[in-house]
C-alpha cells in the first residue's frame, strides 16, 4: 500500500527533532515569496509587538495611544499581528511532534554560566527584550523584516541593518563573556 507508506514517511519527517538549517532556511525563503505573492507584504514580525503594545495602551490609557507613533503604526489586529501567535503555535506544534516540548525557566548555557537563578535569567531576558524591540522600532525592522525580506530585495537598509546587528550582537556577547567569564 504505497499511499500509507508515504504518509508514514511524511509523519516521520514532521516528527524529526531537527531539520538541516539549509532545508528549513529554503522553506523560510519560500514563505517570504508566498507573503509577497498572496499577502502583498514582506515577511516580518517585530511590528506585531508594537501593535500589541498599542492595543494595550489603547485599552488602558486611550489618550497615550493617540501619539504620533501609533498614528503611523496603527494598533489593530491585522496580518502582521497574526504572525506572532502563528509563530508561537507553529513552534509549539513542531516541538510537540518531536517530543521536545518542555517548560523550562532557565536555559542550559545560562545555567552553566550563572546558575539556576530564575529571577536573574528572567530580568536579563526582560531587559534584553526591551532593548531588542527599541532597536527594531528605531531601525523600522528586525532580523526577519530587514535581515531576510529586506536583504532578499537587495535593499540597502536590509543589508546594512544585518551587518550592524551581527557586529553589535557578537561584540556585546564577547564583552559580556570576557567580563563575566562565560
Amino acid at each position, binding site marked *: 500500500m504505497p499511499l500509507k507508506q508515504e504518509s508514514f514517511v511524511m509523519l516521520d519527517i514532521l516528527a524529526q527533532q531537527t531539520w538541516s*538549517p539549509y532545508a528549513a*532556511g529554503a*522553506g*523560510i525563503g519560500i*514563505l*517570504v*515569496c508566498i507573503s*509577497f*505573492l*498572496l499577502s*502583498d507584504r514582506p515577511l516580518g*514580525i*517585530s511590528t506585531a509587538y*508594537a501593535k500589541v503594545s498599542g492595543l*494595550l495602551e489603547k485599552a488602558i490609557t486611550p489618550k497615550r495611544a493617540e*501619539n504620533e507613533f501609533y498614528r503611523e*503604526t496603527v494598533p489593530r*489586529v*491585522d*496580518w502582521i*499581528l497574526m*504572525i506572532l501567535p*502563528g*509563530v508561537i*503555535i*507553529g*513552534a*509549539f*506544534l*513542531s516541538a510537540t511532534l518531536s517530543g521536545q516540548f*518542555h517548560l*523550562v525557566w532557565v*536555559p542550559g*548555557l545560562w545555567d552553566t554560566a550563572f546558575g539556576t537563578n530564575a529571577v536573574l535569567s528572567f*530580568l536579563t531576558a*526582560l531587559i*534584553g*527584550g526591551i*532593548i*531588542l*524591540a*527599541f532597536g*527594531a*522600532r*528605531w*531601525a523600522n*525592522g*528586525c*532580523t*526577519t523584516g*530587514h535581515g*531576510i525580506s*529586506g536583504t532578499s530585495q537587495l*535593499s*540597502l*537598509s536590509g543589508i*546594512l541593518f544585518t551587518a550592524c*546587528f551581527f557586529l*553589535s*550582537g557578537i561584540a556585546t556577547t564577547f564583552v559580556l563573556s570576557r567580563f563575566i567569564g562565560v
Partner: protein
Amino acid sequence: MTLLTRLHTNARLQLVMGLFIGIAFGFLLQKSGVTDYNVMLGQLLLQDMTFSELMVSAIIVAMPGVYLLVHFGCAQMHVKPGTLGSVVVGGLIFGTGFALLGYGPETVAGAAGAGALDALCGGIIGMILGSGLFAAFYPKIKTRFLNRGPFPAQTLPELLNLNPWVVIGIAEVVLIGILFLL
C-alpha cells in the same frame, strides 16, 4: 480587480493568511534549532553557525523568488527606505538586545512556543514594553536621528547602477560561497 488584488484586499482572509504563514514560520524555526537559547548564543559566540546558515539559505531562495514574482507582475517590491540614523543606530541597539536576550523577535516567539518561559515571560513581555517605550520617545527620536543620513539609493542595483539580475547572480555566488565557508 484581479484575483490577487481581491485576495490582498480581503482583510479577514489576510488574518488567516498571516496566522498560517506564522505557523509555518514558527514550525521551520523550531525544526532548524534556532528557537534554542544555546544555539542562538552559540551563534553570537561564533561557535554554532546554524542561525547564519538558516538566514543565508532563506535569502538564497527568496532573492530570485521575489525578483521573479515582481518580474512577472505577480508581486510588488517592498523596500523599506532607510537612513544611516535609523538603520545603523537601530541595528546596533538591536544587536545589544539580541545578545542580552539570546533570541531575535521571531526566535523568541518560537522559543516561547517550545516551552521556554524566559522567552515567554521575559522576552515577549519585554518586547511589548520596549515597543511602547519607543512609541513614547518617537517624536524626539524621529527628528534627531531617524531622518539623518538618507541613502543615495534604495537598493544595491540602484546604487551600483547595474541590472538587478547581474547583482542577483553575483549575490547568489557570494552567498553560496559563504554557506560553504560557514
